[in-house]
């Protein structure tokens, strides 16, 4: 079972990709409202504390949360954008606690980010395009 931990603001395109590219073995956790167009399994974010499968964080705040969870068997951070670019003031120690966190394995969405993240932090485990997580469950 894979748990996808989403931020509050949900993009329809992301939900559509999750719906189209994943089988039934997944569940979304978020505080946001999901469009009824996509009948995806969904739970409030609070329920993630009881989740025991593989958890995937999708932005910095959810990565911080995922790193603190005790129950998941595996924890991933799916990096879809370089969130730190342009942020100020930026502190390396804070970035390090997320992107070099020993609890979290990294996943990127394209080859270019793979090389960048590998050089800046650590080598991502997977390249996952369009939210298709079937690879990481193998």
């Amino acid at each position, binding site marked *: 079972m894979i748990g996808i931990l989403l931020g509050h603001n949900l993009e329809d395109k992301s939900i559509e990709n999750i719906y189209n590219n994943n089988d039934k073995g997944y569940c979304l956790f978020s505080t946001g409202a999901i469009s009824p167009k996509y009948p995806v399994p969904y739970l409030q974010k609070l329920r993630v504390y009881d989740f025991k499968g593989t958890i995937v964080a999708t932005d910095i705040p959810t990565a911080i949360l995922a790193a603190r969870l005790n129950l998941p068997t595996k924890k991933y951070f799916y990096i879809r954008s370089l969130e730190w*670019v342009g942020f100020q003031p930026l502190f390396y120690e804070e970035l390090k606690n997320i992107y070099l966190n020993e609890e979290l394995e990294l996943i990127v969405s394209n080859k270019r980010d793979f090389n960048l993240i590998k050089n800046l932090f650590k080598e991502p485990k997977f390249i996952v395009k369009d939210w298709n997580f079937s690879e990481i469950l193998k």
Partner: protein
Amino acid sequence: MKVLVQEDTGRLGDGIASSLVWIDGLEVSRWDYKNKPIMDMFDEMEPDMIFISAKTLTDPALQIAVKRYPNTRVISLGLREEGMAALCFMYIDPHLSICRKTDLEIPTIIFNDGVMLGKIGKPAAEEDLMSDVLCFTNYIEGSQDQIATLQFLSASYNTKIFGSVSVPVPSYLGIISDQIKANAMASTKVYVDLDGGSHNDLLWLKKNTVTKFKNILDLKKKIDKALKEGDQDINHISVKNKTYFDLCSEVLNFFGLKEAGDNIMEKKGQLL
């Protein structure tokens, strides 16, 4: 002995302050000139020695403070503007000037930047900080040209950029402590200096540096060459006697503080 070093005096002020703190029995404080009045700082600290920007010499409050505390030795940092004394009736002459050119009117120590040894210490390479190219933004303005250069480096090499000036480049990883900064220096292959002085720190660690380049193509050629060469002892030798410890020793000796001057050179010996 109490020493006051004005903030916002670039690498010169930072280098001096970070060196003086290594001397036993010296109390070194930084002074935020913009937010703290001169007189308050003198009353609170009663400094024996003050390092100030040459521009601050024209501040009338400084003359009043120096009159009230006549034993305070005033050292100006940077070049004084010509004719400053004639133009400003409240101008005070410092006891010593530290700048890049000889000042004919006052005793001068010529210093064209050097190794900020006090902030480097004895660093160790770290896997997390490994890079082919390293840049620091602490003393740059963040101009369009500089950002374009950093974008090129970010896109073309395994680059890490740190520092207090934020730049919109993926390889910019934010502000770091002095210890991590020193370790990042020890973990890189080539340093690209955009501020004109920080390359000295990397030369101390035997690293190859690129300081001047005509254009991006020229920069690429120089980096590629430096990457092939690897660390070189000659780099260290070239700055061995060009450190802020040497500068501070010279300043202290100028004021007859031989013991303190010897003390800092002893500390330098321990870091060699």
